[in-house]
Every structure is written in C-alpha cells, then in structure tokens.
C-alpha cells in the first residue's frame, strides 16, 4: 500500500512538473464571447498556413478574460485577451501588480447592436428616447421618476404599433448588455430634462436610473445564447430581441432590424458609423510574451492583414464591421510595432 502510494505520488509529481516545465508552443487567447468568432476565424487561417500550431481560443467573457490575462507573465498565462470594451484603469493596475507591465491594444473593428424582430411583424422605426421609455425601470412622467407605466408601444408614441412591449435581451453579465446600456439608455437618459437635472445633483441615482431595466416582464433576460433569442423571435412576431449584428446578418431571411434614430442596421450604416448603436471590439496583447511564445507577431500580422480585417476580408464575412481605411492603417502600424498602451 505504502509503496503504491509513493509510486502514485511520484507519477503525479512528474506529470505536473512536466506540465509546468514544458514551454508552450501554441498561442492561448481568452476573453469576450463577442470577439470569439473573429479571433477564432483568424486563428484557423493562421493555423492552416502551417507554420505554427492553431491558437487555442477560450470564450470566458470580457471580465473573466482580463482576470486571466492579468494574472501573470509566463507560459501558464494567456498571451492575448478578447474584449468587447476597452480595458479599465483598474484592470491595467491589476495587470501591473502581477508584472504584466506592457500591454498592446488592438482595435479590431466594430460590432453593431440591433433591436430585431421577426419579418412577420411590421417594420418599426424607433428613437433612442423611445427605447428608453420602453425599457427603463423608472421613467420620467410630469417631472418625476415613476415606475414604468407603458405596456404597449403606442402609449409611448401614437405612431408606434398597438403592440405589447416585449423585448428579449442579454443578462447583466454580458458585454452586449453593457454596451446597450451605455449607447442607448445612457445616451437617451440625457435627453430628458428631469434626468439631466438628476445627473447634476446625484450622479449615482442617475446611473441607477439609466442602467436599471424593467423587471415587470416587458424586458426578458434571455440568457447568453443569442441563437435562442433568434428562435424565440421567429416563434413570436410580437417580440423584439437585442443582440449583435452578426446574428441579424446570418438570419436575414427570418429577422429584420428596427431602425434606430432613422437609420437601419446595415453593414454600410454601421461601418460608416451612421447607425448609432455600435461599439469597438478589442484584442489585448501581452508584450512580454512576444518572442517567448512562438507566432504571436505573425498572428497579429495575420489579424491586421487586409485579407482578414479589410473591407472584403474574411472577418467581414463573419459579421465584423471593419474600421475605416485610415484607422485600419493606423492600428496595423501601431500593433505591428507593438506600441504599448499608456494609461
């Protein structure tokens, strides 16, 4: 018994040390599930070229990605992280504390957030304040914030259809939700005088006002799986869903996007930033790993090549909205020179 225990312990120790000592020959990426489809597409092309192993891309969410990314330097920690928002100051500090001093920021393109419904439903044209009135937990009525009284769209504006307000959207853990709150709810909140006043007097209460969505059934948290929302919209023409543009792009035969402030969510409108609800997507690179883990520089070169993120590149086919020409050029130069982020 004792002998076999000792053997087992030795075996376990060898295995674990072999694991730790083994230098990695494969790039590891973590982070946002929104950027995941694009980073993986680049990873696949990069692997197909045959010089390096295909990078491993984990889908951990933006926040979870930064946590792993900032945990330290060395082969046990990821080299890149996907993010559907810019890195926060607190995250840069956390990184610095663990020795991750130099971080290269790469903006990869834009993602539009759409409010879509089944094609069987009537096309709808919304403004952001209307969306705020439909979705916020408390809305200004006669100078006061009250519990959201609207149950049908035409109560908000007689021009909108007489239809129950029913919107399916992502849960608070999702980056899409954060972006929607920032780009639609916060922006719209400032157009109401009552809330503007509140912003001056009580910043915290203002933040709470625009970031709390309804909990009375008009807004339904539908989970992180956007395909599920697509299926539900198809089955229920009265409902709307909030998700990334690529899902609308893939399901164009079933769904239509609502116009926001008079602009329809099309590829061109998002690319030219006419469509208001779009956000930049990022990939962050650990500079200390460049040269240690083989292939990082070449991977970045593939990502920033025109055939990947260009206007007609394969990432555009996957639903990424490319940056304008000049911005692409500038980003590519910055990333390939490994210019570190300054905060």
């Amino acid at each position, binding site marked *: 018994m004792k002998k076999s225990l000792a053997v087992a312990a030795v075996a*376990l120790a060898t*295995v*674990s*040390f*072999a*694991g*730790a000592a*083994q230098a990695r020959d*494969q790039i*590891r990426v*973590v982070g946002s*599930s929104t950027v*995941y*489809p694009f980073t*993986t*597409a680049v*990873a*696949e092309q990069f*692997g197909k070229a*045959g010089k390096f*192993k*295909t990078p*491993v*891309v*984990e*889908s*951990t969410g933006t926040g979870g990605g930064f946590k792993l990314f900032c945990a330290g330097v060395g082969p*046990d920690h990821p080299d890149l992280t996907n993010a559907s928002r810019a890195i926060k100051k607190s995250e840069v500090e956390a990184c610095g504390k663990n020795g991750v001093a130099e971080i290269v920021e790469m903006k990869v393109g834009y993602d539009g957030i759409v409010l879509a419904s089944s*094609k069987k439903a009537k096309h709808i044209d919304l403004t952001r304040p209307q969306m705020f009135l439909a979705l916020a937990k408390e809305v200004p009525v006669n100078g006061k914030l009250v519990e959201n009284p609207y149950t049908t769209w035409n109560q908000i504006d007689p021009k909108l259809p007489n239809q129950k307000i029913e919107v399916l959207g992502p849960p608070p853990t999702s980056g899409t939700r954060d972006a929607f709150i920032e780009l639609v709810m916060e922006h719209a909140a400032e157009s109401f005088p009552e809330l503007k006043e509140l912003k001056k007097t009580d910043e915290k209460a203002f933040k709470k006002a625009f970031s709390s969505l309804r909990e009375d059934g008009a807004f339904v948290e539908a989970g*992180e*799986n*956007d*395909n599920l929302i697509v299926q539900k919209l198809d089955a229920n023409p009265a409902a709307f869903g909030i998700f*990334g543009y*690529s*899902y609308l*792009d*893939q*399901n*164009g*035969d*079933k*769904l*239509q996007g609502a116009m926001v402030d008079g602009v329809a969510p099309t590829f061109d409108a998002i690319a030219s930033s006419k469509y208001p609800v779009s956000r930049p997507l990022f990939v962050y690179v650990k500079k200390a790993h460049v040269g240690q883990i083989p292939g990082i520089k070449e991977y970045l070169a593939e990502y920033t090549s025109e055939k990947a993120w260009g206007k*007609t590149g*394969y990432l555009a086919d*996957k*639903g990424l909205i490319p940056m304008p020409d000049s911005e692409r050029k500038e980003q590519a130069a910055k990333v390939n020179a490994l210019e570190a982020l300054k905060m």
Partner: protein
Amino acid sequence: MENAATVVASSDAVAKRLKKRYAAERRFKALGFGAIALALGFLAILLVTILSNGLTAFVQTHVRLDVTFDAETLGVDPVKPSSDALASANYGGVIKNALGKAFPDVSGGQRRQLYKLVSTGADLPLRDMLMANPGLLGTTTSVWLTAGADVDMAMKGHVGREPGVEGNRLTDAQLGWLADLEKRGAVSKKFNTTLFTTGDSREPEQAGLWGAVVGSFFSLSITLLVCFPLGVATSVYLEEFAPKNKWTDLIEVNINNLAAVPSVVFGLLGLAIFLNFFGMPRSAPLVGGLVLALISLPTIIIAGRAAMKAVPPSIREAALGLGASKLQMVTDHVLPLSMPGILTGTILGMAHALGETAPLLMIGMVAFIVDIPASPMDPSAVLPVQVYLWADSPERAFVERTSAAIMVLLFFLAMMNLAAIMLRKKFERRW
C-alpha cells in the same frame, strides 16, 4: 333473519368498500401511466426536434468541377515538382480557375461571389489528391468539391432559394449559378465525412467532431483510471474493514453529500488544485479527466457499497469459517460477487461525466481547438463542450451541426447505458 340482514348489509358495505378500493387502484394506475406517457412525450419531442434539425448534417452538398492542375497557377515546377512545393501550392487558385471556366461570362466583382459557392477548405482534398498522385499535374479531372455553408443550407432547404427575397444569404446571381449547376447534374449531397474526421472549425462545412471525440476519450480514460481503483478501494474499506463509529458515519454523510454537489464547484476545485497548485496545463484532458473523476467518485463509492451490501453475510461467514483471511474473503468472494453492481455504477458515473460541461469551463476546456489532441496533455475540447460552442455560433449551418453533435453524444451515452444494463443482466445473481 336478523343475522342474515346484517350479513347482507355488511356484504353491501364490503362491496362498496371493495369498489372504492378498486377505483383508487385504477386512479393510481392511470396516474402512473399518465406520468410515464408525459415523460415519453417529452422525450419524443426532444428526439424529433433533434432529428429533424440534425439529420441533414450527416450529408454535405458537393459541387462537381473540372479542375485543371496546371503548374503555372499552382506555382510549382511543371516537370519535377518537389513535395514541399506541392504541399504549399496554390490550390485555391486552381478552384477559382475551375469555377471561372464553368461560368465563363462572370467577370469583375461578381467573380468574388462566384468563388463563395465552393468552401474555402476545398483546397485540402485537392492537395492530398495531387500529393498522392503527382502524375495528375497538367491534367484536368472532374472532382466533387465541398460546397460553401450557405450553398449547403440552401440545397437542404434550411434557407429560402427564391431569388429576389430580401435577407437571403445567397445573392440572386449565386442562386442562379447554383440552379445552373444543378441542371448540369453537378450538385449532389454526399455523406459528410468531415463531421467525423476533423477538429473544430469556424466554417460550418469544415467543422468536425473528431477532436472532441478524442478529447472525450482521453478525459474518460483518465477518469476511469483514477476513479475506478479509488472508488472500489474506498467502498471495500468502508464496507468490510472500517469500524462503525462516529467517524465512518461522518465520512458516509460527506460522500453522500459530495454526490449532490453542483459540478461547477468541482471545476473550481480543479482550477485551484490541479492548475494553480500543481501547475498542470490548461484545457488538457488530463485535468478534465481528474476533475470528472472527482465528480463520479461519490457515485461509484455509493454504488459499490450498495453492491457489497447485497452480498449475503453467509458467504462471508463461510469463507471466514473455512479459514480465509479477511482480505481473501473480499478478493475471492465479495468483490467477484458484487462486481456487476460496481461496474454498473461505474458506467453510470462515467456516462454522467461524459455529459458534463460546467466544471470544464473553469479549467479552460470550453475553447476553440482545431488540432486533434495527440495525448492527454494537449489542449482539447470534449463532446458536450462542442455542442455548447456550436449552439452559440451565429452561422446558420451550425444549427444542424449542433443537433448532429447532440445525436453523436446521445449515441455514446445510450451505448454506455446499454452496456450497464447488459452487464447487470448477464452477471447479476439473486439470493
């Protein structure tokens, strides 16, 4: 007279009571039948949706093209090409030429649309063809090439093929070309071998389950290697050797408790111990197997103890009475007799482990991994993780592939459960 009356009255009451009891029994039977029918109904709905969504994924649309392996397009020496040059030659260009030849009047910007009829991964089979037979260089061969995912979806009827409809994935021109190819008999659906031979891909028509199947195999092998000996040893000790006191009671309560702990907690444990403390690699089936072993261990211990409890004490007493030591009694009598029960428990525990994703998220196995793992140390996904990743992909063609992956997973689960039932049937002994 009076007596007879009471008898009649009481038999009336008896008949009434009897009727009531029968009625209660019928109600109970009806309820039980209803419950089973409901369960079967849900199962049928599940299977029908999965089958109707996923059966088409087992075939893949192919397009026949006359491919000319001309050395100039390939960029290799026409007389004596080196195998290195052949391996990295421009097969995509060859396909583009073939498409151009099939539709000579398409030009300019429309060319790009034309190229999308064929999968971007179609160049690999061409490479294998030419590498296997370099004599093809300079000749023209008719080859079936994998079609692009959008073409595949249109051919299978998952998206509309009516031209002029807004929101179509294929443009009207592409639909026209497709119809043209169909008229020439150059479009056909063939068995989807890719699904069973390759790893994950972001292009649905190139995505396969093989990487996940191998990953699941490695993980479950590790799980079995770790938890079967440990589980059996634990149950033998607790059942046959351990004294019955407060401590063993406490251990028993804890084991039963562990069997009910949510699996994601084991994932966190695995992250803390195997990754952070022992420094094992992320996303490796080795770690996945160890975590899954922690999850199935309680199940195996509980099943093992139950199986040993079912062995009659007379057998133990007979063995001891004939002078066997306690260890001999266990290895020669109790273990062989309880083995069917232990194995059944083990297989059920493994089947449970095969379906787990939540704990694997923590140790980095929910990831995009293309390369097929060669050892338990290589990064790898497992089957349920592949289902999860595909279900979340925006591409339409992944909907049917998700269902196909579920079918493969269900097939393995059914096989394991069937094995458990057969073992029990074959070796079970009743006393």
